[in-house]
């Protein structure tokens, strides 16, 4: 098989150059990098135990990825025990189909921010099925209106300044929204409030999953996840299988390290959701759907992750907590933002692209953009060696090797997961 990437490289180079001359991107990135560095330095001073905790979490994640099939089985059993329904989706197609099946026809969905959602093109798929989907994270909402993909995993609209937001909002809401951030936020708050309480389904991701209790830990600041996972009658969690750690206390450690390196300092909200809403207040009879959702579903998505987990050269990529810290320290990302990316961004994103979202073909230009300078490794709380993996993947491209495709149902049956699928 022959694959000519010369044109892709040329177009991609143009795109990078354009981004590096885009005043909006440069303005936003300069502010973002400075703010990230200042906040992180300050919070590290206030919570000096963080680097040691990060080291401990490295150990937790390394073991968790090694035992991923077992933990997946445990986590699914925990969810079922908590009266939720757990599913394993081997790829993107299975994942979105499962979600659509649960949601049903003609429904409205409020959605929290999720990179996995981007990876499997969840919103686009559901919209094609006739579902009305609202992104509730402010940044994602802006991009939904702008019809663009995220330019940073935590601050997806990092490249859009307030003036441009005002323009987009004025058009969408059909009235003059001034280029004032408070006014912009208030406008979305008013609009979204109604959506939370009239939607049929709330969809969220999860930052960490505790296998022993089935707890989904979701970190946020806006409060949109609280509302979208609490108000509608149905909550669906869609989460990558790499997010599972053995215990609840492991999960808390992972969460703290995640938010500290993600510039949250202290996050406004940490949601821990383990099952549907319930009450036993009348005659001690457990009844589901008290104030929160009556139905709770978790779809564990593989989509290439177990391949990564079983290749010792690349399994460490799954330790990524998605804090996004590396991107602020990446010299390429600093001038191009998410243009250095496909779905996943930056150096670590090029590894993820190769395995879960686009394959080596889409990853190739990104892999050759990485400077292999190694500063991301210094920033990364998991010390993920991106330059090493980039080298390995470049070698594979040059040698014409492909990422081995395995029968994933095998992986699923290893963990007895297929049983849960049919239930």
């Amino acid at each position, binding site marked *: *098989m*022959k*694959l*000519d*990437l*010369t*044109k892709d*490289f*040329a*177009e991609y*180079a143009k795109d*990078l*150059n354009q981004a*590096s001359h885009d005043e909006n991107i440069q303005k936003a990135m300069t502010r973002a990098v400075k703010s990230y560095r200042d906040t992180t330095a300050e919070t590290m001073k206030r919570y000096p135990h963080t680097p040691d905790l990060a080291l401990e979490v490295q150990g937790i994640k390394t073991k968790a990825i090694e035992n991923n099939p077992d933990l997946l089985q445990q986590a699914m059993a925990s969810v079922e025990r908590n009266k939720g329904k757990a599913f394993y989706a081997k790829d993107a197609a299975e994942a979105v189909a499962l979600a659509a099946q649960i949601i049903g026809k003609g429904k409205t969905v409020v959605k929290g921010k999720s990179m996995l959602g981007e990876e499997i093109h969840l919103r686009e798929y559901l919209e094609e099925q006739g579902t009305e989907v609202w992104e509730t994270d402010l940044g994602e909402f802006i991009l939904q209106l702008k019809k663009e993909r995220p330019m940073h995993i935590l601050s997806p609209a990092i490249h859009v300044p307030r003036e441009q937001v005002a323009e987009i909002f004025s058009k969408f809401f059909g009235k003059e929204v001034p280029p004032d951030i408070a006014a912009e936020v208030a406008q979305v708050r008013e609009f979204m409030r109604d959506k939370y309480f009239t939607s049929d389904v709330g969809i969220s991701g999860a930052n960490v999953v505790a296998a022993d209790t089935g707890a989904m830990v979701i970190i946020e600041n806006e409060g949109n996840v609280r509302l979208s996972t609490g108000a509608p009658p149905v909550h669906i969690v869609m989460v990558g299988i790499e997010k599972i750690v053995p215990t609840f206390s492991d999960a808390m450690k992972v969460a703290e390290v995640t938010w500290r390196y993600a510039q949250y300092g202290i996050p406004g909200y940490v949601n821990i959701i383990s099952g549907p809403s319930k009450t036993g207040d009348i005659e001690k009879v457990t009844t589901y759907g008290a104030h929160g959702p009556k139905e709770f579903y978790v779809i564990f998505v593989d989509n290439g992750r177990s391949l990564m987990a079983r290749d010792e050269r690349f399994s460490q990529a799954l330790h990524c907590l998605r804090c996004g810290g590396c991107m602020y*320290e990446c*010299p*390429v990302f*600093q*001038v*191009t933002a998410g243009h250095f990316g496909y779905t996943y961004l930056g150096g670590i994103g090029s590894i993820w692209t190769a395995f879960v979202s686009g394959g*080596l*073909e889409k990853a*190739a230009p990104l892999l*050759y*953009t990485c*400077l*292999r*300078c*190694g*500063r991301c*490794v*210094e920033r990364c709380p998991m010390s993920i060696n991106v330059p090493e993996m980039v*080298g390995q*993947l*470049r*070698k*594979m*491209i*040059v*040698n*014409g*090797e*492909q990422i081995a495709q395995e029968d994933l149902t095998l992986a699923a049956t290893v963990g007895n997961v297929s049983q849960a699928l049919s239930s």
Partner: protein
Amino acid sequence: MAVETKLPPVLDIIRSNIVKYGNPLAMKGSEVASWAKGFNLPKRGDILFYTGGEYQLLPFIDSLVKTMTHIDQGSKGFSLMMGVRNVLDKAGFNAEKVYASVLAKDRDRYNRVCNKAAHILQRLGYDLCYPGDEELYSGALLYELGFWEDLKEYAQKVVDMIERTGAKTIVCLSPHAAEVLKLVYPQLVPGFSAEVKTFVEMVWEQRDKLPAIPTSKPVVIHDSCRLARELEIDEEIRDILQAVGVPIVEAFRNKKWTTCCGGPSKLLFPELSHTMGSRRVDELEETGAEIILTSCPYCLASLEGGQTKGDKTTVEDLIEFLYRGFAA
């Protein structure tokens, strides 16, 4: 099923030049070694002075890149040029050099870096040997760009070259060469056991013998990524400057946290590379220092290329700067 992937042609040009000619730009051995005239260095000895031809090829890379910046690598024009290259090649001309030398200006300066480095080391009491026109490039770019199979074969040639000198220690001027020889070669060539050192380490060990450099103006150090991170050499440069009495100011991002000069993306994304180089120069200039020092050929070229009109700073290699003390 194997997939044959066609990447931008520049990658294969670099690859085949290294494999065929022992140099990324197919320079002749006599050109690489021309700096050594008058030194009369023996071909055998304990300490191998290893330039890898890297400083020597800088002005050519820069010119090649300047040419490429204006050409769309996916365009027919570029493919055509590669065709012309092949024709030239068959006729016995070196195409890259034909393009590149048109704009080459800094040849002497970069050649002199090798000259100065050898001079400094000799004055510090090291007996150097040099293989002259047999010197081969380290192959670092083969490693960098994914041509690991080629490197496996090529590394053997380099090791043969090293073994012919009988040297026990290799002094690398380029941290890229040091990285690949020290960290990659032992995995590729069984039994390869020569001690690999950088110029910085050799000077650091004898820093007490360095002549002082009279200046009151502080310098700022741009740590090279390879040196600071892979090879963990950063304090040594500060010690050396302290030994010669030169005040140092530190950039906000330095040592293990140094900012890349953008050099690695020069071949594929020259414009972006230039932007990153300029930004690093700005970071370094924020310190108020007027002299920027680095210890890597690619950093040197990228930072110089990243300077803008009206910049008051000069970019020098540590080698050039230390030589001031001997020349005074």
